[in-house]
Structure formats: structure tokens, C-alpha cells
């Protein structure tokens, strides 16, 4: 079998790519995609640790399912917000969401 | 005689023995996997060749026409003539289309149609791969189709195509829920998601035990394949052809093949889940009969779907979504709850099945009564006669 750290490095790389996307993208939907990548990286870690340490109990998989649930909820609400904002301000550029600026 | 009794399995064994005479072990595996894959990939193509002819004949009869009758006896070579025509047509790509996405969409939609066949049991031990998550796999593969359709609709850079794609997504996502709920009922009763096990445990076809799940699944499956009366994603008379309006030649052919491949696949899945798959008289003693029963049942389901297509007018988009959310989902949910409760009863399985059947009939009755009432109210409000 492949050693555990292969998976961990893969997850770390994916997490960093996602973090870059979430922080550097100008478009709100792009930011959301970055967040999804980060959540997926977490899932890889959870499942990899499950497989390599406590394969008899399914805790890692269970947590991954909860992460997927939360990701789905987050995507639904996030995208609804973007559409609502787009209707009002005609943009989904995160730098222009500044009505609360003091 | 024994060889004939389980012909397909024995034939596969002899084939493996024959090629392992001249090949090393790993090559035998590779060759067998490739062959199996090839057979599965060919299924949508076979389905298209057979079903286009059948559909034209059936619809022709329903519409009081003859259907194809020029190319070959009873027009059976019509499909081949069409295939040749499709191959020699010019391949047009719209000027401002998103070319890579435009070209990828037909491939992806065909992949979705072909991959479904991997978990369909044609007979005892005749299954591409008896995954322990077979039933869920079927649903998951369906989501590839959604993505492919969205890609096609968007990449064509055509308003009709985009409207078609939007309709598809609304429809597929809405009807996926009753579909999953009705598959869930079957999985609950069987206690396994393996397609092979689902067939093995149907000593009585589930359509007789769970009619609500059966009807819900068939309706959702028609919607998932986008056939009339749920064909408003194509709706030739409203948005010309929906998401594949800009495709021509062989690329259009892929959509066509995927459509018929999906039609046959959902009929095969209906057969597997609700009609007892390859089970039938003497199928236990002579497994060679299994695939025969399977094909007969599948063609029967396809015939019913064609019948529905030829008889009913098209829904409006809001009616269609309302039907999914207000009729199918509640009925499927109540059914799931009832079946889960019935399975907990401390009585033999036959009694449990009887309890399920009673509950199902009650749900069916209530649903139909409510539907009839709302139809009457609708007719009264709009001053329509009848209902």
C-alpha cells in the first residue's frame, strides 16, 4: 500500500491551492470554489487517517460525510447570497461588497 | 446439456480456458476486462439501433401510421440507414462556441450512458461489477448526465440551448429526489445495495409489494431520461431541440445514442429493482433463461414508456416541478416511513410484505384522490369542462 504521508502531502497541496483560490480570487463564486477545495482536502485527510489507523471503526468516514453535508449547506446559502447581491449591485466582485464600510 | 443450461457462464469459462492456453495470466485478465468493457460500452449503441426502430413502429401504430417500411423488411434497417446519414453529415461548430467544452459534452454524456451498464445484472453472475453500492452508483452516474447537458447548453452559445439546459437541471435535480427515495425503499427491504442481491431476494417482484415505489421510480425515470410527457428539455415545438440544437453529425449522434442508451438502462434498472430482474420460471434450473427473461421484461418496460410517450401531451415546466415536489416526493417519503415501520414488525417476511402492500395501496389511493380533487378545483376555477 501507498504510505500514509503521500495522502497527507496531497491533501496539504490541495488545501493550499484552495486557500490561494479563496484569498486571491476576485469573484465571489471563485472564492467559494476555493473553499470547496479546502473542504475536500480535509476529507482526504480524514479518510486517509481512518484507513491507516482505525480501519475497524468508521469514525473518519462518518466525519467526512458530515463535512460533505456542511459543504452542501454552505454552497446553497453562499450561492443564494451571491445571486441576491448580484441582483442589487450588479456585481459579484468581492472587493465591491463594501456597503458596510465605516 | 449441462453446458447449454448455463450457456453464458460456461461459454465465458471456455473462452478464458482457451485464451489462457497461449497467454500469460495477467494478459488473460486484461483481455477479459477489455472485452467486458467493450460489451458494456456497446450496449447504448445496440440499444439505439434496436429502439429507434421499435419506437418508430410503436409511435407510428399509436398515431395510426405504419412507421418505417421502406428499408428492409418492416423497415428494420432504418436505424442503420440513419446511422450512415449521421456519419456523412457535416460537423458544424457555431462561430462563438466554447470549443473544448462543446466537443467534450457529447463524449461525457455517452460516458454517463455507458457506465450505467456496469452494475446491471443480466443474469445470475452475469454482471459487469457487482458493486456493494450498486444502487447508489446508478444515481451518482446520473449526475454526470446533468453536467454534460449543462456543458452542451452553455458551450453552444445559443439561447434556446441555454434555456434547454436550465430546464434540464431543474428537472433532473427535482426528479432525482423521488427516484432516490423509491430506490431507498427497495434497498431498505433488501438490506443491500448490491444489484445482484436485490434480484436474488425478490421471490415476489417488488412491483407487487411496493407499487408506490414502482410507480414513483418509473415516473422519475421518464423525467430523468427526458422523454414525453416530461420532454420539455427538448420540446421541439418550443425551444427547437433544447441543449443539443447546435450539434450536428456524429456529435448529435452521441446525444441520440446516450438518450436511447439511458432509456434502455432505466428500463433495465426498473426490471432489476422492481420486476425481479432475470428471475422467472425455471431460471433457477436453467440459468441460460435468465438473460432472456431479463430482456423480455426490459422490452416490456420500454414498450410501456413508449406508450406513455405516444399518448400524453407535454407538461408545462411549473406543472412538472410541482408534480415532483408536491406529489411524488411526499408520496415517496410516506412510503419510505411506512416500509421502515413494517420491516420492524416481529412477523414473518410474507406478512411484512402484505403490510407494505396495504400501506402502499392506501398511499396510492390517497394520492390519486387528492390529485383528482385538485384537478376538479382547477377546472372549476378556470371554467373548464370535464375533470
Amino acid at each position: 500500500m501507498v504510505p500514509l504521508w503521500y495522502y497527507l502531502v496531497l491533501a496539504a497541496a490541495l488545501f493550499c491551492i484552495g486557500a490561494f483560490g479563496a484569498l486571491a480570487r476576485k469573484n465571489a463564486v471563485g472564492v467559494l470554489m476555493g473553499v470547496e477545495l479546502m473542504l475536500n482536502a480535509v476529507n482526504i485527510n480524514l479518510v486517509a487517517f481512518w484507513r491507516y489507523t482505525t480501519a475497524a471503526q468508521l469514525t473518519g468516514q462518518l466525519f467526512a460525510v458530515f463535512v460533505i453535508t456542511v459543504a452542501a449547506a454552505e454552497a446553497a446559502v453562499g450561492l443564494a447570497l451571491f445571486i441576491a447581491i448580484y441582483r442589487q449591485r450588479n456585481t459579484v466582485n468581492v472587493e465591491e461588497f463594501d456597503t458596510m464600510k465605516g | 446439456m449441462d453446458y447449454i443450461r448455463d450457456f453464458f457462464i460456461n461459454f465465458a469459462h471456455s473462452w478464458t480456458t482457451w485464451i489462457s492456453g497461449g497467454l500469460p495470466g495477467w494478459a488473460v485478465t486484461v483481455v477479459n476486462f477489455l472485452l467486458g468493457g467493450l460489451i458494456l460500452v456497446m450496449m447504448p449503441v445496440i440499444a439505439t439501433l434496436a429502439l429507434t426502430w421499435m419506437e418508430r413502429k410503436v409511435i407510428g401504430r399509436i398515431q395510426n401510421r405504419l412507421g418505417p417500411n421502406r428499408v428492409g423488411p418492416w423497415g428494420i434497417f432504418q436505424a442503420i440507414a440513419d446511422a450512415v446519414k449521421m456519419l456523412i453529415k457535416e460537423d458544424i461548430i457555431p462561430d462563438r462556441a466554447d470549443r473544448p467544452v462543446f466537443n467534450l459534452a457529447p463524449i461525457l454524456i455517452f460516458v454517463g450512458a455507458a457506465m450505467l451498464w456496469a452494475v446491471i445484472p443480466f443474469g445470475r453472475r452475469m454482471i459487469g461489477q457487482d458493486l456493494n453500492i450498486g444502487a447508489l452508483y446508478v444515481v451518482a452516474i446520473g449526475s454526470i448526465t446533468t453536467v454534460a447537458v449543462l456543458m452542451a447548453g452553455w458551450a453552444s452559445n445559443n439561447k434556446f440551448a441555454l434555456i434547454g439546459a436550465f430546464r434540464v437541471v431543474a428537472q433532473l435535480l427535482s426528479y432525482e429526489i423521488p427516484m432516490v427515495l423509491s430506490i431507498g425503499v427497495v434497498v431498505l427491504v433488501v438490506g443491500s445495495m448490491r444489484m445482484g442481491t436485490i434480484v436474488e431476494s425478490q421471490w415476489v417482484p417488488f412491483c407487487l409489494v411496493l407499487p408506490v415505489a414502482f410507480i414513483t421510480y418509473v415516473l422519475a425515470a421518464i423525467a430523468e431520461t427526458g422523454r414525453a410527457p416530461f420532454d420539455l428539455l427538448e420540446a421541439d415545438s418550443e425551444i427547437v431541440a433544447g441543449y443539443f440544437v447546435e450539434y450536428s453529425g456524429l456529435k448529435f449522434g452521441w446525444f441520440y445514442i446516450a438518450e436511447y442508451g439511458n432509456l434502455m438502462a432505466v428500463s433495465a434498472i426498473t426490471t432489476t429493482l422492481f420486476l425481479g430482474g432475470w428471475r422467472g420460471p425455471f431460471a433457477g434450473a436453467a440459468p441460460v433463461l435468465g438473460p432472456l427473461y431479463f430482456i423480455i421484461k426490459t422490452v416490456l418496460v420500454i414498450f410501456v414508456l413508449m406508450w406513455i410517450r405516444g399518448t400524453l401531451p407535454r407538461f408545462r415546466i411549473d406543472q412538472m416541478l410541482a408534480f415532483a415536489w408536491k406529489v411524488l416526493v411526499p408520496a415517496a417519503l410516506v412510503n419510505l416511513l411506512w416500509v421502515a415501520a413494517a420491516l420492524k414488525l416481529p412477523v414473518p417476511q410474507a406478512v411484512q410484505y402484505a403490510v407494505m402492500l396495504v400501506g402502499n395501496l392506501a398511499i396510492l389511493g390517497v394520492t390519486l384522490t387528492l390529485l383528482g380533487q385538485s384537478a376538479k378545483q382547477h377546472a372549476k376555477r378556470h371554467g373548464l369542462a370535464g375533470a
Partner: protein
Amino acid sequence: MQHVMFFLFAIITLGAAIMVVTTRNLLRSALWLILVFFGIAGIFVLLNAEFLAVVQILVYVGAIATLIIFAVMLTRQVMDPKQPRFNDQARVVAGFATLLFVVLAVIVTRVAWPVAIGAAPVDAIQQLGMDFVGPYAVPFEVASVLLVVAMIGAIIIAREHE
């Protein structure tokens, strides 16, 4: 064999992920995201989590990616090629992301993880189901409440006000 499959899926996942965050056209980047999800599903299969792999495709590709594509299409101007891709912090963020990756990679390769490879359970799906209604019943219910709340919230937010 496992190594080959792992590297195949890893390259697909990471390559597609880089395309997701750098492609100018957001719709294409959503399509790359779908490829990432498929790559991760492959990784899950390698880790003997078949159920999770199918759920990954079902939820991420079937629902989340479709939603994202929808949002991209509804907010059209995102496909305008003249729009800049990144904000002005992009370089700094790229630097920090690389740094974070190096640190994480060093840590995970240095630590001696208490690896104990057992056989994956054969009836994993049944066990998973039992766990969801047994020891994890409360989180499971909370997750379902969360989904309902999210659904209602999304409808209220995205609805057009008269």
C-alpha cells in the same frame, strides 16, 4: 499498481485544482472543479471508502458543482474576459500558500504517524448506517436540521421580492 493509481489520481486532482484557481473563465473553472471531485473520488476508492466515493460524486458533482455552474450563468458578467482574475494581494497570498504547503509537507513527512493498517470492514455500509442512527444519532439529526435551515435560508435569500 497502487502507486501508479495514486499518482494518476493525485496528478489529476492537483492539476485540475490549479486550473480551478487560475482559469480566467469561471465556467471552465467550475468544470475543472468537477474533475477535481472525480480525482478525489478515485482517491477514496483507493482508500477503500467506496461509499464515500459515490457520495462524493453524487453530492459534489451532482449538486454542488451544478449549483456553482448555475450561479456562474446567472451572474453573467463573471465571464467577461476583461475582468481581472485576482485581487492585488494575489502575489502575497501565493507566497504564503506555498510557504504553508512547505511547512505542512515537512511536518507530515517528519511525524511518525501511528500507522496500523487493518483490513477495511467488509460490511462498511451497514456499519456506517448503524453508526449514524446509533452513537452519531445526534450529530446526524443536527446535520439534517442544518440542511433544512440552509434550504429555507437559500430560498428566502435568493427569492425575488415583489
